[in-house]
């Protein structure tokens, strides 16, 4: 079964029947999730204004394409990645970095220094909210966001996750992870997704920022009408 979690599920072929007696319960769970088809209402419903909240009716297997900390601005994440890639470039105009010391030399014999200490500027804090970009075996893209801390959030890209029956899905494309029973994290990796991961993430964030700058410039003329309609959509009197 380890072969499934370390390959791209959109191209994965497996001939092991889910009910084979040689399979462990975990293997059977993975195979079930892989073999289950996405329900028809998934992905098609964003155009349907009545869709709202639904619950998944059977477990599905996904691979994690991207993890974004959406509690932090893109500029802060870019700053953090840049200073991890090149500690000399760290910006010193805030008190945030006052205790940061450059590590220019490491004593090989000192086993007390570990990678976590070297990469002390982490963009994954326990209280943050994350947006996961997920891909199903049919290649469809979904999103998930967490309301509970996820200890595996720093996982390699291409890790596999089963979203279990009854997990909430909003508008047919965004899963809400509200409890540990909503998912089974399997681990795994797709190696080439992780090559130059920091640089890829930097490019992605920079182009997203650039795009939003361009969009802002283009839509400036329509600001009033857009703002009003957005306010109407986003503000709801529940009574």
């Amino acid at each position, binding site marked *: 079964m380890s072969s499934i979690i370390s390959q791209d599920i959109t191209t994965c072929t497996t001939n092991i029947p889910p009910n084979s007696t040689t399979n462990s319960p975990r293997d059977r769970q993975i195979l079930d999730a892989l073999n289950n088809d996405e329900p028809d209402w998934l992905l098609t419903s964003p155009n349907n204004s009545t869709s709202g909240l639904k619950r998944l009716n059977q477990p599905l297997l996904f691979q994690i394409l991207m993890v974004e900390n*959406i509690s932090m601005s893109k*500029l802060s994440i870019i700053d953090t990645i840049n200073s991890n890639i090149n500690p000399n470039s760290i910006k010193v*105009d805030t008190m945030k970095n006052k205790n940061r*010391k450059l590590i220019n030399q490491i004593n090989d014999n000192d086993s007390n220094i570990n990678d976590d200490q070297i990469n002390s500027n982490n963009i994954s804090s326990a209280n943050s909210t994350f947006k996961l970009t997920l891909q199903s075996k049919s290649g469809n893209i979904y999103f998930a966001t967490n309301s509970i801390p996820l200890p595996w959030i720093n996982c390699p890209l291409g890790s596999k996750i089963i979203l279990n029956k009854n997990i909430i899905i909003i*508008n047919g494309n*965004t899963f809400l992870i509200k409890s540990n029973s909503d998912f089974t994290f399997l681990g795994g990796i797709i190696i080439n997704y992780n090559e130059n991961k920091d640089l890829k993430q930097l490019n992605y964030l920079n182009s997203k920022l650039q795009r939003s700058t361009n969009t802002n410039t283009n839509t400036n003329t329509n600001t009033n009408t857009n703002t009003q309609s957005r306010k109407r959509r986003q503000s*709801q009197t529940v009574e």
Partner: protein
Amino acid sequence: MKVLCVAEKNSIAKAVANILGGGRSSSRDSGYMYVKNYDFQYSGFSFANGNDCQVTMTSVAGHLTGIDFSNERYGWGKCKIEELFDAPLSNVFDKNQKKITENIKREARYADYLMIWTDCDREGEYIGWEIYQEALKGNRRLTDSQVFRAVFSHLERRHILSAARNPQRLDMNSVNAVGTRIEIDLRAGVTFTRLLTDTMRNKVIAAMGPSATSGRSSSDNNNNTNSKKKDSVVISYGTCQFPTLGFVVDRFERIRNFISEEFWTIQLHIENKDANTPTVFRWQRGNLFDRLSCLAFYESCIEIAGNKAKVIDLKSKPTSKYRPLPLTTVELQKNCAKFLKLNAKQSLDAAEKLYQKGFVSYPRTETDIFPKVMDLRALVENQAQIGQQGRSPWAEYAEGLLSDDPYAPNKYQFPRNGTHDDKAHPPIHPVISLGATANITPVERRVYEYISRHFLASCSTDAKGQSTSLTLDWADEKFLADGLVVLERNFLNVYPWAKWETTKQLPRLEMNEECTIMKSEMKSGKTSPPKPMTESELIMLMDANGIGTDATIAEHIEKIQIRNYVKSEKAGKETYLQPTKLGVALVHGFEAIGLEDSFAKPFQRREMEEELKKICEGQQTRNNVVNNIVGKYRSYFMKTNNSKNVLLQVFDRVNRQLS
């Protein structure tokens, strides 16, 4: 028996002579117009076994000597710059220093003892050693055992008498630390100033005119004087100046590269019968930088819980706003910039003058802990000015602190302890109260008022209040609202700069109560760029990163403005520091060479300060530290010298971009 006492400034010599001489000292000229010699009799020195001594009290005017390279051999253009990393150093005296040293030598000639009364900090220790060296030239009979050091931090009579009765020795570790710092600053400063100036002078003049930079490198004093042309444009380097500039440029670039981002959050409005408006509860998750995810939370909450939320936490507890910690130099400069809009140099100069006039304690201190034995109550009494005419606006408050009324909430309390103790001086505090007609400038008066109010606030009771917090659960998402009722203002009454106000009352809800949501909103906002650097922020960053000392921070900030690397700009009530094109080009130039961590970032200077501390603690030697750090600068020099074109290209680029 003859005793020669030497202070760091004439005002201190005069005040100490007046105290030790019981008001019966006579003054003589010293040969330098700003220094006088005060003669008097005193019998309290323990080293003279209580015998009557004939005392001469005189002073220097800051450092007694300078250190430089020989101008004939190592002047600008007379040697390869890199020779200066090893060139011998010699003592140099300017015109005034010569007059002062002559006076010290003359007065020391028949002295049996030398007592140093310089300021009790690292620099004062070094000046004390300089005085000893000059005194030795006038009196070869003087030995270490005849040289004493007075330890004092203000000019209050009992304190000075106690310092005279309990003399200590010069701390040679501190002397060596300062010697190390001076040598490194000189070698790094002169070499890089010459390299930068020779490389960039013509380009800078062509782009910005001959007045682009002004003044001379402090670390290249004598060797620049032979060339007036060079004086017109000097691109000076200083080991503290560049990191100070780096902070300002980093902020400038952060603003220049800022892109506003949209974020979203959820708010709940709950009816509040005790207020005219509903109470707004904020989302514990704060702002999310993704609309789709925020919308997912919002829709799921509506679908799952509708318009009902439940109280899951209700806390009401006494709370306090703490009185300020005892005042340090950095805090003084930071708060005077923030509250009184005085720059760091103005506030430190004013505090220095107030100290010399005996109104406040020594203003250069890192200590935020008052010694338990200090009679602070007496100082509060002094501020109360009971029975005096023209009392200060805070005198009544000071009187109230000492009240015998058992029901008075705000009683005198010994100040809180901070975490810093330089073991040399107590925190800054007023020594004597200020009469309405005291001979001080308006700026000195404002700084005195700040010091007094801060001191009284630190001796007061914390402000007291009751805080309430309510947490609602809406479909597993948490929403919070806080309330505060200020019950006793206490120290806030004398410290108007601290804000702590009663807020609106929260709705009356009980634990586990289900409440109706009047309105739930998904709101959006946009991030805004940080503001340019203020001086108080810069002081904080320099202090936190170990750039300069409490005493020199103000000088460095002033210097980068004089050098035209940074200019101050007023916007409304605030003054911001903005880098010039030259300032930006220098920082990015060293980045492009790959030396940003040693020049525009605080890391190299911080490392040096740590080494100096080790010398003070006896864990390092001057030779080791000089060899190590000068060796590093030598390699940075080679690298920069090989990349001069990079500096010029970056200057052109920055000049184009910012024009």
